[in-house]
């Protein structure tokens, strides 16, 4: 398994993620893995006990995981949010802004390329609900009217 890279100071959780079905059926699990077709809102009543949510991207072009991440952050999820699967360096900046803390990619990511991608854009046009310094940053329109 490739190593998990983190986008911020948070250390990666080593909790073992179970499927959504497994999670909803077990009262003690603290990590869950969400597939693209699953409704992440089913997790909303359980956010407090979740340390880790893995969002699977079986193919990079399936963007449902971005909405899943945003929904979790918008509802106050404070645990680790990790993108797994077909995660490419050119998607990382968007993942970060949707509230992901970390990624475990099927194909190894080049450290330098990751840093370049995360720091490429000087500003953002949209406000998102992420909590890290970069994902939660102020959009251009807010800076214009401060």
């Amino acid at each position, binding site marked *: 398994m490739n190593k998990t890279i983190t986008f911020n100071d948070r250390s990666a959780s080593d909790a073992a993620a179970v499927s959504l079905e497994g999670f909803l059926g077990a009262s003690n699990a603290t990590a869950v893995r969400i597939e*693209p077709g699953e409704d992440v809102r089913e997790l909303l009543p359980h956010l407090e006990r979740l340390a880790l949510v893995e969002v699977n991207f079986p193919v990079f072009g*399936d*963007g449902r995981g971005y*909405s899943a991440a945003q929904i979790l952050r*918008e509802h106050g999820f404070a645990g680790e949010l990790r993108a797994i699967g077909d995660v490419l360096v050119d998607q990382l900046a*968007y993942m970060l802004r949707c509230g992901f803390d970390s990624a475990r990619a099927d194909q190894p990511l080049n450290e330098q390329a990751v840093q370049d991608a995360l720091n490429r854009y*000087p500003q953002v*046009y949209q406000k998102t609900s992420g909590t890290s310094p970069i994902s939660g940053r102020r959009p251009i*329109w807010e800076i214009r*009217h401060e």
Partner: protein
Amino acid sequence: MYKYDQYDQAMVDARVEEFRDQTRRRLAGELTEDQFKPLRLMNGLYLQLHAYMLRVAIPYGTLNSEQMKMLGHIARKYDRGYGHFTTRQNIQYNWIKLEDAPDILADLATVEMHAIQTSGNCIRNISSDQFAGAAADEIADPRPWAELLRQWSSFHPEFSYLPRKFKIAVIASDEDRAAMRLHDIGIQLIHNDTGELGAKFFVGGGMGRTPMIGPEIRDFVPADELIHYAEACLRVYNRYGRRDNKYKARIKILVHELGTEEYTRQVEEEFAHMKTLGLNPPLAELARITEFFHDPAYDTRASDELDLTDPDFRIWVEQNTHPHKQAGYAIANISLKPTGGIPGDASADQIDLMADLAKQYSFDELRVTHAQNIVLPHVKKSDLYALWQKLDEAGLAPPNLDLISDMIACPGLDYCSLANARSIPVAQKIGERFADIGRQKELGELKLKISGCINACGHHHAGHIGILGVDRKGVENYQLSLGGSGAEDVSLAKITGPGFDEDGIVDAVEKVTDVYLRDRTDGERFVDTYRRIGMAPFKEALYG
């Protein structure tokens, strides 16, 4: 016109550097074509039959002469001396070398232009009314709203890997010159009962292989909730739009399968949630953008008098100019549809000339139309004759706006890797058959649209007369359809019956126009007659 500030410029510059790096990695063999493809597509670069094609965004179809000159420069330096204006108010270059693409984007960035999101499964260039800011019938200029949406949709972190591409149009008059109802989201600006300006939303229109007219899903969204509502529409689509079948992935299929009522219910639920998040720019931002779209300094004493003694000039004025909201001014349409030409093509020299004329006669402004023509939006009537003479010398004054030879045609099998049949030769042959302008004027408003495959880039579903090229056992075959419209009387065309070969389709078009001439009543357009008498008389003439 909108001007970038330091933030807008920095974003576009960053994109140029990012793409330069991605191209370098591709040329060095660090990226495979499969890995590179999604990256180049986000920058409007397609691999076509013969070369790379680059699509450059012209936000809401508005540009100034400096930007237009740059488009001519790119045609000359990096292509074969011409460009192709598209149905989404963009421009495409068909003969681009991959290694040149980063330099082209860098050149574009110097004049506040880019190719961001002109392809890929993301929110594409926002289109609008080509007469925005000039039309007598608009209630407001729709472009500030389009610019607000442009910024919101650029590099959107959640909506850059949608099930399929996503097109938004914004208009502000009852007359629809932008095919608004045939977009994924169509927005019409309206006033509510208290006189407040807001947006009416239509969602789930589109052409392609399953054409649909977008139903209204909300009659009024206030200006300070526009982005919240758009976010809600997109989130429901991103989560539930089909991803199992590319041909069922557009939002129109989702809206159709859920039903308008259920889709709307889900959007309203998301909207209520979005409103708690404060994602909408403040009204001050819309006001800031609106400042850029103030009226130019019109000569308020300009005369409405026009000397129409030159008969050729008179024909052009009658056909190619449109009433302006300011007395003494007109909107001048430059037709890129000369007889025998390629619809939407312009040479670098023509592009330069149009730029110069915009500077001299139209307050430095040009527009691109979804019908693949160019507009000089603010021309003083007393300048029209001089303008027309210069256009005419350059082959830019065909007096055929909205007539049968003012066709929309996709690039077809001459360029496109998706096409099943050629579109351009059919357009050329029809143009030659109806070359006589008197004959065209006798036929009146007649919107003919040609697509070279079922993807419908040539808008054939929305043509008064539509032509679809298909491949039948290795032979190009053309299906005829009648009765479509992309305007405020929006409708989808119906197929007449079996298709025709290349020459047969030209004859078929002539036959249906003969039926119209025979059966019309006073004041009826072709499409009105079709709607009144139905398909049968046309079928009889074609197949009887």
